[in-house]
Every structure is written in C-alpha cells, then in structure tokens.
C-alpha cells in the first residue's frame, strides 16, 4: 500500500458551484519528492489541503471519493490529529506564526507541546531544528519581528519538530524577496535528504525540476499529467495549462535561440525621442525617518517616460524613494520636481490625479463590496464623472484580465486577483505616472504576462511606469531602464542588458541575475549550449 492513496477525490467549496477537485486518483510512495504545477486556481492548494484533511473538515462543503494517508482515512481524522503524519507550510509567512509565543524558540515548541511530547525531547528537537535551519541565533527574538524568509524558516522548523512523515510546501517562497527565497530553498535542499516525503507546489519550475522525482500537472481541478520532470516539462502544450512553456531541467539540451525565445533578450534601450521627456527630477534630496539615521544624502535622479524598474535588497531605500515621488514623504532638504513643478508644495490629494501608486498589499486598500466599486473609488475621488469613472474602470479591469468580475466581492477573490484589482483601481484613475510596488508577487506565469502587457500599453499611451521589483526575470523581460539601489544610494542604472552584465555591482547590491541570463552563461561555460 502506498503512503498516500487518493481515489476519485471530488470536492466543492461551500457556496460555490464549480468542483475545485474533480475526480482525482493517484498514489504517492514513501520518500518521494513530488512537484505540483499548474496555473493559479487549478486546485493545487486544495489538493494539498485534502491530504492533511483541512478539506473537507475545516472548510465543510461537498466531498466525494477517498483519501488515505499512512492507512488512515483522512476524511475521518481531525487535522490536529492528522498533523502527526502530515505537515503543511503555506505562502504567507506572517499568518503561519501561531501568535501564542513571544520568542522564536517558544513558537517552534508550540506544535510539539500540543502533541504532549516530553520536555527534554522537545528541547532536543527544537534545538536541532533551529540549528539545522540556521535560525538558532534568533531563538530569543519575537517571531513577528523577523524578515519574511526568517519567518518562513521558523514555520518550517515548527513543522519539522513535529516529525511528520509527509510535508506539504504550498508555494513557500511566493511572497518572499530573493534573499528570503534563497534561504527557504536552501532549507528545501536539506529536506530532500531526510527521507521525508515532500509535496511542493511551486511556480519557480526550474527549482522544482531539480528536486522532483515526479511532477503533478493540474488544470481545472483535474490531474493532467503525473510523470517525471523530463516527461512533463517536455510537453508542447504546457502554455495551454498556464504553465511557463520552457523549463530547464538538469540534462536538458538548450540552444541560444531557445533561451532568447523563452527568456527574452532584455529590453533594449528605446531611442524614441518622445520617451526622453523628463517627468521627475530629484535634486540633492536628503531624507531620514529618524534624526541621525539618514536614508538618502544628496540623492540626484532624473526619470523620463521609459518604463523603469528599481531593484535592490530590502532596506536599500526603494520604497522610500517612490513614496517621496508620490509626495507621501517630504524631503528633509533638496527638492523633487514633477513636470518641472516642485512637489513639496502639493498635498497627497493634489497629486492623486497625477501620480498613481499601487501598494504592495492589496488588502491595505480594498474596502468595497464589488470589484467595480473598488476600481471606481479613486476616479470618483479625483473628480471624474460617474459615467467616465465606470468606463475607465471597465477598461482597467479588462486590461488586468478581470472582465466579468465586476460584481464579485473582491474578498471572495484570491490574493493574486485582489492584486490585479488593486492595480486596476489605480490605472482607472488615468494618472500620468503609475508606481507599482512588487506587482508580480503571488502571480503565476499568466499573471506576469498580463502585468507585462499592461506596462507596455501604459508606456505606449505616454505614461511613466515605475516598479519596485524583486523578480529579476520580470525586469529583464519588461523594463527599458533599470536602477540598482543599495543602502540609500543609486549604484548604477541603464538598460537591462547593461545592468545585468555588471557582476560587481550586482554582487554589491546582493542581487541575482535573471534566470535566463544566468542559465545561458553557465551553459556556455560548460559548453552545453
């Protein structure tokens, strides 16, 4: 008998009509590493939660078929009992902290305490796990004050100490910055050698291809394919399932042409004169939140109409810079000019119809009960007529791929769709400048393509798009100008090909090259291209 056996599993969430899981049958052996891929909404997370019993016990709804894990019938086992066998780690690092403990050490103990393990054994296990995941030094810190990558490692440690046979990783890096992503993947590396059975849902397919024994390709609640990475990623119809069409796996033959087709060749500097018009001029700006801790000293920068990506690690000053541009913060000294006018004299509300700003977390702004009302809120505030506001809102929704969702409650949507709603709500204001803070977080292949298309369309309309990004592949494919920041300084700027060829500067800013660029270089070195 296999470790996990699923027979004709069907599931429907309460108050919905569509099956989230539609007749799934498969079995997974002990010690396997299984990758699960597919577009957002394909049913990947639901499948993961069906293995630990959250589906159907936590959500209720309608359920059919049978799932057995380690000989136990999942449907009849409460999740708090099931967790001895199956562990789950999901996207949002913050929401995985129990909130029951004030220190990292206590937080990691929490699950094992609930299991009723001997205190001595708890101490031994927790110490081991914290050391194994390199978070031993944070043991006395408050878990809520850690970075995303650290929190996510605390979450993994908390599950590991419970010693489950199976661990489900549900896109654990999708909401992390590159450094956090690296941290988590290095933990996954370690897990692959422990003999624990792992199911990993992930959009970073190259990583998955390297780890997985087998890949489950899902679409529309069904399993489309369940085979080795080579077999699944060779399929020519991947794009029709919303999966990135080219995935490198070790041993795959690649040509330079393939690399360029699938990873782009970097956006080359556009020499159109119309894009050269200066929009923002930052002149000798000093800024600090706290006295004596300067963020910027004598910062100078000119921004024209080329779509511009700002990259750099957390704490480099990217968000502070765009908040200054938006007028949410005022420089301590120096000036910022928008279309030749000093913005220090204007209020945020006065700039609202000129500069749009999409915050990173859509849940910090969404408050209406219908998508269309949410998107119309900004346009109405800046004095558009209701008719015009509705028109603009519809156009923006269509651009972000949300047509037909007008009357849906935004909070019934998934995070990636709420992000699109938030972007639409700013685009509909028809501002001259659009600032995006990490637009690609939680997006899949198709979502990233939609945002890329939006950027090109806005640029064609003569609008300036500025984006803060951690997603280097996305920068490489979509931005004409790239600005590298580190510790409050601009290290370099230029088109993406120029910037990503400067190894020294990328190293100083602790940034990685886009996957395609790095892959091309390494394959060239080893002569596989």
């Amino acid at each position, binding site marked *: 008998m296999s470790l996990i056996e699923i027979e*004709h599993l069907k599931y429907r969430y309460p*108050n919905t009509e569509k099956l989230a899981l539609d007749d799934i049958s498969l079995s997974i052996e002990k010690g396997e590493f299984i990758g699960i891929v597919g577009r957002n909404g394909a049913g990947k997370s639901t499948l993961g939660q069906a293995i630990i019993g959250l589906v*159907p016990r936590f959500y*209720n*709804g*309608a359920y*059919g078929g049978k799932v057995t894990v380690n000989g136990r019938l999942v449907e009849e086992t409460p999740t708090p009992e099931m967790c001895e066998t199956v562990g789950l780690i999901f996207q949002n690092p913050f929401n995985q902290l129990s909130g029951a403990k004030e220190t990292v050490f206590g937080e990691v103990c929490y699950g094992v305490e609930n299991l009723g393990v001997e205190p001595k054994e708890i101490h031994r296990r927790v110490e081991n796990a914290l050391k194994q995941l390199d978070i031993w030094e944070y043991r006395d810190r408050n878990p809520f004050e850690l970075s995303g990558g650290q929190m996510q490692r605390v979450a993994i440690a908390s599950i590991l100490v419970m010693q489950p046979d199976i661990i489900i990783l549900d896109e654990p890096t999708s909401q992390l910055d590159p450094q956090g992503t690296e941290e988590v993947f290095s933990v996954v590396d370690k897990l692959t050698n422990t003999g624990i059975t792992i199911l990993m849902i992930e959009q970073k397919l190259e990583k998955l291809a390297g780890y997985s024994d087998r890949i489950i390709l899902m679409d529309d609640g069904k399993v489309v394919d369940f085979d080795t990475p080579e077999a699944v990623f060779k399929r020519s119809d991947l794009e029709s399932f919303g999966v990135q069409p080219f995935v490198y796996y070790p041993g795959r033959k690649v040509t330079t042409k393939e690399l360029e087709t699938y990873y782009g060749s970097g956006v080359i500097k556009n020499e159109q004169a119309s894009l050269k018009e200066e929009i923002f001029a930052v002149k000798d700006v000093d800024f600090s939140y706290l006295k004596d801790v300067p963020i910027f000293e004598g910062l100078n920068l000119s921004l024209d109409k080329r779509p511009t990506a700002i990259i750099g690690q957390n704490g480099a000053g990217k968000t502070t810079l765009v908040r200054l541009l938006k007028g949410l913060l005022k420089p301590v000294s120096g000036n910022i000019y928008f279309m030749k006018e000093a913005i220090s004299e204007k209020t945020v509300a006065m700039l609202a119809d000129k500069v749009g700003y999409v915050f990173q977390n859509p849940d910090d702004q969404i408050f209406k009960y219908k998508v269309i009302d949410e998107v119309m809120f900004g346009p109405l505030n800046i004095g558009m007529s209701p008719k015009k506001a509705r028109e603009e809102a519809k156009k923006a929704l269509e651009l972000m791929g949300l047509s037909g969702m007008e009357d849906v*409650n935004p*909070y019934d949507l998934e995070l990636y769709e709420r992000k699109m709603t938030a972007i639409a709500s700013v685009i509909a204001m028809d501002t001259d400048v659009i600032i995006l803070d990490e637009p690609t977080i939680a997006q899949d292949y198709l979502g990233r393509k939609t945002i890329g298309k939006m950027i090109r369309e806005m640029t064609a309309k003569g609008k300036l798009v500025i984006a803060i990004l951690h997603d280097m592949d996305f920068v490489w494919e979509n931005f004409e100008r790239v600005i590298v920041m580190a510790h409050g300084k601009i290290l370099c700027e230029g088109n993406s090909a120029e910037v990503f060829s400067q190894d020294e500067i990328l190293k100083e800013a602790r940034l990685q090259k886009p996957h395609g660029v790095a892959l091309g270089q390494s394959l060239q070195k080893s002569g596989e291209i």
Partner: protein
Amino acid sequence: MGNIFKTKLNTATIVLIPACIGINYLGKLFASFLKLPLWLDSIGTCLGACLGGPIIGAICGALNNLIYGLTTGDNITLIYAITSLFIGLAVGVTARLGFMETFPKSFVCALAGGLAAVIVSTPLNVIFWGGTTGNVWGDALFASTQAAGMPVALGSFLDELVVDVPDKILTIIITFLILKGLPKKLTSLYDVNAQIERLD
C-alpha cells in the same frame, strides 16, 4: 430557543477573538486619527457577536476591556469589562434573532447594545466614581442633574444614555455594512449548522 447561544468553539472561532479585539483597537485609533467625536471602539465586539454568536461576543467584549485595562494600567476601563460583556451578549442575541438582516432592523440591535451598555454601566458609575463617566458632555449633564437635586442613579443613567446610545448606533451601522460585505468563503467558517455534503 436554546440554539440562540449555540457556540462552535472551533479553531476558526478562537482566532476570531484576537482579530475582533484588534478591530476594536483600530476603530478607536482611526476615530481619533479622524478626530471623530465618538469612540467606535466596539466594532470588533459587535462583529464577533454577529459571526460567532452571543458567547463569542461576550468574550470579545470582556477580554477587550480586561486587556486594554491591563496594558494601559487604566483600571477605569477594567471595570467596564462587565459592560462590554453585556454589549457583546445583547448584540449577539439580537443578531441571532434576525435583527442584523436588514438595515432598519439593525437599529433594534443597536438599541439593545446601547441599552445594555447604559443599564450595566450606571450602577458601576455610581459604585465606583459616584456617578461620573469620564466623558465631558455626559459629565456636564450629570453635574446639572445633581445641581437640580435629582437622584444620583437617574443622573448617571442620563449621563450614560447621551454618551453610549449614539456611539452604539453608529457602531452597529458600520458593523452592518462590514457584515454585508464579508466574503462568503469566510462566513461559511462560522456557520454553526454547516454539514459536509457527500458527492458520491
């Protein structure tokens, strides 16, 4: 009518309580940020009562004041834990009786909450502070009733009435608007009568 108090003490309901207390705090924070002349610090309690039932509402209310009192050292708030408990209870019961279904009906809920506040607070005011409430307008009214020679209890009752009822009405309006906008996939978690349907 035994099921009015039916409470599902599952994980989803347990984590609802800290969230509701956080909402109370933020209501207060935003009200003072916008310089509104109201407290609006029981939105979370009312939400908890409507979603989780009267018992959860009562726990949210009482715990909110206990924790606020313990963290700011403001023992004046501490004593009013009993008031908040009854606000949660009253709103929860009226909501379970169906008074949160439409906007006009929700005023019954608001009135129940407001009256619970007044009735429970008045004796506390009299016992602990000789009748005052700490609210400028209410206390001015109290002073004038005392000057006119009315009984302490009546004065304190009026003092509370002018302060609490308008606040609770607005709180319930906001709660009502928020409840109406709650996504379905969330409300189903708190449904006390939910069953798993079979698909084979």
